[in-house]
């Protein structure tokens, strides 16, 4: 389990304990966090689960692979802090992770 905090575009926060092995996207969907669509269900095919990761966390997460990098490059609101939440696996290593959601996924 890891505690993950999801921060909506307007600053509203939601914190949950998410089981190991799930993705951060699944943690959001399971807990009905608004702002993460995940149209493809986690296949890294749609870029509708984009989140912003604070810089101090970015280095602690597994690197972005080329598929994710390309998907992100087409996401309207992506920045250098963006990741796809479906590609971040939950484990003790992400305890305390904070992710921010964009205004819209489209």
């Amino acid at each position: 389990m890891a505690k993950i905090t999801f921060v909506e575009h307007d600053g509203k926060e939601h914190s949950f304990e998410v089981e190991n092995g799930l993705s951060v996207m699944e943690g959001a969907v399971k807990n009905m966090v608004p702002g993460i669509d995940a149209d493809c269900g986690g296949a890294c095919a749609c870029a509708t689960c984009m989140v912003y990761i604070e810089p101090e966390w970015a280095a602690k997460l597994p690197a972005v692979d080329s598929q994710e990098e390309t998907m992100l490059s087409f996401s309207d609101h992506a920045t250098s802090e963006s990741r796809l939440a479906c590609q971040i696996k939950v484990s003790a290593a992400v305890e305390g992770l904070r992710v921010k959601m964009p205004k819209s996924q489209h």
Partner: protein
Amino acid sequence: MEDIVIVGAGHAAGQAVASLRADGFTGPIRLIGDEPYLPYQRPPLSKKFLSGELDVERVYFKPPAFYEQAQVDVRLGLSVTGIDRAGHRLLTDKGEAIPYGKLILATGSRVRRLSIPGSDLVGIHYLRSIHDVEAMRAEFRPGARLVVVGGGYIGLEVAAVAAKLGLSVTVIEAADRVLARVTAPVISAFYQRVHGEEGVQIRTGLGVAGFTGVSRVEGVEVAGGEVIPADVVVVGVGILANVELAVEAGLRVEDGIVVDEFCRTDDPDILAIGDCTRHPNGIYGRTLRLESVHNALEQAKTASATLTGSLKAYVQVPWFWSDQFDLKLQIAGLSQGHDTIVVRGNPEEGRSFAVFYLKGGVLIAVDAVNRPMEFLTARQLIATHAEIAPARLADETINMKQIAG
């Protein structure tokens, strides 16, 4: 406020609930599904759910609490047997009459079943539901001989998972190549090569005549009389839209329930969404019936907008994906009617390339294997009817983002 009843409990139905509440509909919503499950995602069924990487809970579209919070009256395991349009009510297999104000038909599709000698033997499976996959997976033991009938996406995805689980897999396809209905020969040849490299035997140009066995299937008899030994069989020969309710209710149906760009049928109180619809597509200038998650989600959003008083026409470039081994195939657009095929990259070596389809110089579709950039660029260009010189598409020294020139 009129109550809304949704018939069907797949992707489209789940999204319709979410969108109706997000769009501010506060009236009663009732969801009726004939399966015992809340709306779930079907794409993983032939992929990570079959392989055992995902359990049932992880394929749900939304968690059970979502429906409680949305105050949806969920009725599962209930089949709607008729629509009484004059009386504004549904009839069910349990003898109930359920009233509706507005009705959304999200009845989806079902597998096409074979009706040939031996086709009812134990051990012959189809893949559409959680239940189907659970039954199939129980028989996927390492070393077992699996024969997959049909070399479409479902058949090839099952073959890929089974090969990784250690089964001995043969795919038989009646056409002269796999994926013949939907892709160019170069894609078919590529998938046949990779499946061969991964230990799957693919045999094309071979129709199925019947199945042998006493109570359980023991073999697949193909045209010419040869019997291919099988411990388990999976048949993937296409799906059919569930239109019977609409037909019996007298709604307009043409291989799909006919709807307009706002998902309205010819009855002002009945909408239809997802696989079961025949709908206009402005980008292609014709009507389509699609078997896809993207269409299910987008039509659900369109229907919700229609019902909450803000008409938003459905205009979408269809897209699809298929995961097999380490191949991520992403498809944008529809290739039917193409006159030119352009290959970018080398499909004969490695596992990364894209095929573009053009009609009259205009890009209409792409099949991209491990090429997200080609997929995403093409998806945008298709929407704008972009004309692109074939030589530029084929030239890998030109970055995809500059391809439109």
